[in-house]
């Protein structure tokens, strides 16, 4: 039982809610945030003793949110130290923290870097101020540029910048400028997400009310193509639908999600995949805190993942990666009752130029990647 394990920690506070954001986050509330930290630490200590993690080493830690960088360096490092004390760490552990421009300065970043955080993921979204305003971001492009440089100065040598594109009214030229500037700054990693309108967000509401229209399919594809072409020319390899990295800098933590690897998620709404079960913590922050205070644990849902389902998940999420999956490996690990039907479907997809079969590996073609949800639907529907 020496398979490595990943740990996700959720910090659910932001200064303000962005218009597109459907994540589990609320406005920063200091008194509550102190209780949250202590609940989180209770959980870390408790899971550190769990037989499920005994003998296993953490290969990655990801502190996400929300905006983890809203907390002080001491608070964050306090949590990280507890992780170090509670779990065994693998050599070369990747420790990522998400940060938003406007919540970090040189002192804080330097402390965090020295305290062990070796990867910083910064939510930039755009280098155009009108885009940022439309997205409801709390910072300007200039603040984002400075934050990036400050992080470099603080010693972060593995950095990601997050972007969103294909916004309502966004022009191709505007997005191109953002990309150019990102390339110019030269982070090791870039995430570029086509805007998704989520229910329960300000955008969702405005969209329902017809306040804006989204770029149509063809237009979105032009954004996609531009993104892929520019980033690839600049030496960023697309390794997942929305993720690009210089060689050796793919996010190992996130690769775990797409490779059916196990992870433990702590904090409100965090999901775990451990011991053939997927389970999640309570989403409601107050409820999460109270439950942990009372019971040391706050499970919301838990479901077993049988071999058949695990095989489908491994295929589906693995196919988000541009190098796909090792089909033989998956079928060996999770035997399927009728793998022939799957093979037949793949043959059809190969014929339709959606999939590329290079035994023992399979992967999606660029067109197949663009239709990943449909492909996933069919893999689930295949009985």
């Amino acid at each position, binding site marked *: 039982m020496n398979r490595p394990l990943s740990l996700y920690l959720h910090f659910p506070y932001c200064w303000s809610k962005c218009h597109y954001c459907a994540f589990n986050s609320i406005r920063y509330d200091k008194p509550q945030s102190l209780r949250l930290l202590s609940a989180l630490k209770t959980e870390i200590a408790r899971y550190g003793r769990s037989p499920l993690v005994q003998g296993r080493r953490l290969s990655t830690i990801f502190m996400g949110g929300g905006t983890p960088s809203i907390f002080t360096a001491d608070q964050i490092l306090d949590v990280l130290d507890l992780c170090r004390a509670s779990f065994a760490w693998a050599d070369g552990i990747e420790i990522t923290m998400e940060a938003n421009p406007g919540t970090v300065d040189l002192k804080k970043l330097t402390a965090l870097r020295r305290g062990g955080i070796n990867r910083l993921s910064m939510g930039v979204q755009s280098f155009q101020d009108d885009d940022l305003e439309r997205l409801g971001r709390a910072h300007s492009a200039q603040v984002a540029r400075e934050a990036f440089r400050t992080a470099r100065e603080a010693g972060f040598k593995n950095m990601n910048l997050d972007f969103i594109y294909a916004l309502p009214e966004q022009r191709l030229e505007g997005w191109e400028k953002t990309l150019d500037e990102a390339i110019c700054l030269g982070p090791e990693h870039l995430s570029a997400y086509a805007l998704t309108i989520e229910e329960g967000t300000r955008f969702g509401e405005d969209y329902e009310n017809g306040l804006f229209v989204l770029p149509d399919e063809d237009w979105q*594809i032009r954004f996609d193509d531009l993104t892929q072409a520019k980033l690839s020319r600049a030496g960023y390899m697309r390794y997942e639908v929305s993720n690009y990295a210089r060689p050796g800098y793919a996010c190992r933590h996130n690769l775990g999600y797409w490779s059916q690897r196990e992870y433990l998620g702590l904090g409100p709404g965090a*999901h775990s995949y451990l011991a053939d079960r997927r389970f999640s913590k309570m989403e409601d922050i107050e409820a999460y805190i109270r439950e942990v205070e009372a019971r040391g644990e706050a499970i919301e849902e838990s479901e077993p993942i049988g071999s058949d389902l695990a095989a489908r998940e491994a295929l589906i999420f693995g196919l988000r990666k541009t190098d796909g999956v090792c089909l033989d490996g998956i079928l060996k690990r999770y035997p399927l009752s009728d793998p022939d039907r799957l093979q037949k479907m793949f043959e059809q997809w190969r014929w339709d130029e*959606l999939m590329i079969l290079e035994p023992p590996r399979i992967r999606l073609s660029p067109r197949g990647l663009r239709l990943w949800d449909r492909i996933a639907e069919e893999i689930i529907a295949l009985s």
Partner: protein
Amino acid sequence: MQTAIRNFSIIAHIDHGKSTLADRILEQTGAITLREQRDQILDDMDLERERGITIKAHAVRLEYQAEDGKLYHLHLIDTPGHVDFTYEVSRSLAACEGVLLVVDATQGVEAQTIANAYLAMENNLVILPVINKIDLPSADVEKVARQIKEVLGIDRAEAILASAKEGVGIKEILEAIIRRIPPPHGNPDKPLKALIFDSWFDNYQGAVVLTRVIDGRVGIGSKIRLMSTQKEFEVMDLGFLTPKKKPVQELTAGEVGYLIAGFRKVSDTKIGETITDALHPTSEPLPGYKEIKPMVFCGLYAVDSAQFEDLRDALEKLRLNDASFTYEPETSLALGFGFRCGFLGLLHMEIIQERLEREYSLNLISTAPTVIYKILTQQGEWLSIDNPAKLPDPSHIQRFEEPYIRAAILTREDYVGSLLALCQEKRGVQIELNYLDVDRVMLVYEIPLNEIIMDFYDRLKSVSKGYASLDYEHIGYRESDLVKVDLLLNGENVDALSFIVHKEKAYTRARLICEKLKEVIPRQMFEVAIQAAIGSKIIARETIGAMRKNVTAKCYGGDITRKRKLWEKQKEGKKRMKQVGKVEVPQEAFLALLKVKE
């Protein structure tokens, strides 16, 4: 005793107030309370109540103390209210001596009013016109009375004015039934002759029939014979419906009641059948018996082919209750194993389909309805074609015939122009155009049935803003210039979509159907070509472009379960799709033929 009996029916155009009048008569004679009526009188079938159409006949025995001081037994025989069931209506009327012809004072004489009145006349019944809904502000009694005189030749003086809703005129109607409808005059001492005018299946007792004894008598323990099949049975139970079952020892000439005799299925007890005594049989059956034949056919398939056996069981059970529809197994390349089903008409078809889906939880695909075509082959052999896919190659066809109907359409004058155009479009031939009144026109057309089952009725209602009414009768087969059009999805012939159409309309229809299919078939991950062809010649084409983008941008730890649940939900939705080749085709596509507007 017969002098104290009156057998009558209520006939009307739909929505002219037949059921309300029946309810009032039941109330007035104290047969039942209002609440019971809902539960008992109107049929147990939800569908009837929802559609407002009586599908099965009923017969209720009522007691009425008339003004002459005598006690009368009234047998009220309800009739189905739709053209699909004309034969059933005619048999119900054959059990009566008179009818109440209800006409809505605000609407006037409609197509079914006339059709029903003619059926009553053919059965030599006394007709009592009832002008209903006189309480409504838009009622025009004089005009309606004029129409009745004009169309049916019944005098103004004979019409009774009523408002069933308000209870006005009910007494007058009951008195008129006693005074003007003659009592039955059968001979109780002659050999038994009884008419079956309805039957249904009871899980416990088998088929139950409603019968009118014309001559003779029938009692519990009698050995009876059904004359068309010569099958014999022993009477186990009989009586009146009041509307509760009230068993008696014997039914005699003139009486109407139910009869149970160990009939195992309703197909043993065909409507119009004559019951006689097995020991002292009559020599002649009652006139008017017909083997009723389905006129409209369609293929029924379970969306989930694993439900094939369930569908077979459901059809078998439904047929126990309704001998007028038929089914036999068929195979479609596109849809797999299913059944070719025959119905009396479109409404009948819809009812059966709805019952299959609702009562048996089946998820069905039905192909577009078709009529029976007659083909004379080059070899001189006549074929009946109830499935377009089974049509022989055109080079083998010497003569192609299709069924025609004679349609009577009643309308306000304003809509005559659009209706003439509609009938023309539907290949109709005008037989008559008569003014019944200054602004009321009757059109009579001979039209191919295949045009009627497409969308004629909906179109009729829409061009006339609901004012035109339709009734029709079948008038046999005529030669026609017809062709079969096949539909291909990505080059694969989808047999379940083939249709037969008049040559002149083939191109237009084919184009419209391709367009409609493009609308209803969702985009797939590849391009889908829709083609229509006559033989090997492509006459129309549409393309459904491939879906280009459908990918979740952000997908991390928490999204895995959420996404999977979403796809699992979509998988449920997909169960309503049929895989044809590799194209997913929704159920509604198979009815595209019905949905096109020319």
